[in-house]
């Protein structure tokens, strides 16, 4: 508990994050290269979809991350709202642009996959519509924060939006089971064995971990920026900036 107590203070979190960033960045780069090579070169074409299914290796990890990041953001927002922990608000604020990016990638790559397979770029079915709403939730969250100057009040107000928006997460996940949609049902994130060949599952999992590490890497950079901005009048920030010359 002492560990959490110490590193939940921005002053101690800042240098810890700084030490982790290069490692996380290196792991991300290696996993991305291995995952891309495996997914684009080694994995065989699909017997139904040919090579178009390879879009999956960016589409599915982005879609998973769009949900994961939202949960992190909403939990961070709730913690900062209830216990008023500064670092939790920094976490939520820094997650939003990353989550919005993953959602946008999932939507666009999905559209590019939908055109050759379904014959349409877009359809207003449950999965696609709820994912689009997720994108608007991220954008709304960021716009709300940007419109309030005082970071404390911005954190409190936006936290409510983030917490309410979490109802959309199970809707997205189960949409393919609850409604008849064009989108195919889950083949990995479900009870029982995944219904996907191992030769396609391995690069998918590598890419998923790569996206996860990408999120952590950029998240730490963004959190450090946010901390510097908020703590700019403190002595320890002055020491860091002075040390840089």
């Amino acid at each position: 508990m002492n560990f959490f107590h110490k590193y939940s203070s921005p002053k101690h979190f800042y240098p810890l994050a700084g030490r982790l960033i290069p490692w996380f960045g290196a792991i991300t780069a290696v996993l991305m290269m291995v995952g891309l090579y495996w997914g684009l070169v080694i994995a065989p074409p699909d017997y139904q979809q040919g090579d178009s299914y390879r879009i999956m290796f960016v589409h599915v990890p982005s879609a998973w991350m769009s949900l994961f990041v939202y949960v992190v953001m909403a939990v961070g927002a709730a913690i900062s709202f209830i216990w008023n922990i500064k670092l939790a608000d920094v976490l939520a604020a820094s997650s939003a642009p990353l989550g919005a990016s993953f959602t946008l990638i999932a939507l666009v790559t999905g559209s590019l996959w939908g055109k050759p397979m379904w014959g349409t770029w877009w359809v207003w079915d449950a999965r696609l519509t709820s994912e689009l709403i997720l994108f608007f939730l991220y954008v709304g969250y960021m716009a709300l924060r940007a419109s309030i100057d005082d970071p404390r009040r911005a954190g409190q107000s936006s936290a409510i939006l983030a917490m309410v928006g979490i109802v959309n997460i199970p809707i997205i996940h189960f949409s393919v089971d609850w409604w008849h949609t064009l989108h195919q049902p889950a083949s990995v994130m479900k009870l029982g064995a995944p219904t996907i060949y191992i030769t396609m599952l391995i690069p998918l999992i590598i890419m998923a971990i790569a996206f996860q590490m990408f999120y952590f890497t950029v998240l730490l950079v963004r959190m450090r920026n946010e901390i510097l901005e908020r703590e700019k009048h403190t002595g320890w920030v002055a020491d860091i900036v002075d040390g840089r010359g």
Partner: protein
Amino acid sequence: MNWSRFFAMGGFAVYVWSAYGFAAVVLTLNVVIPLRQRKTILKRISRFLRFDQGDQS
């Protein structure tokens, strides 16, 4: 490795490479923007400190 076959993506080249290209652009921006932000913030704070020497509570 057969490069022209690799780039052709079994006839789905436009869709596959647009998808990967778009993802690459968005991810790259996600790296570049916060790094540039960091430079700006550090510059601003150091300028502020130079004007405000001796008052670093």
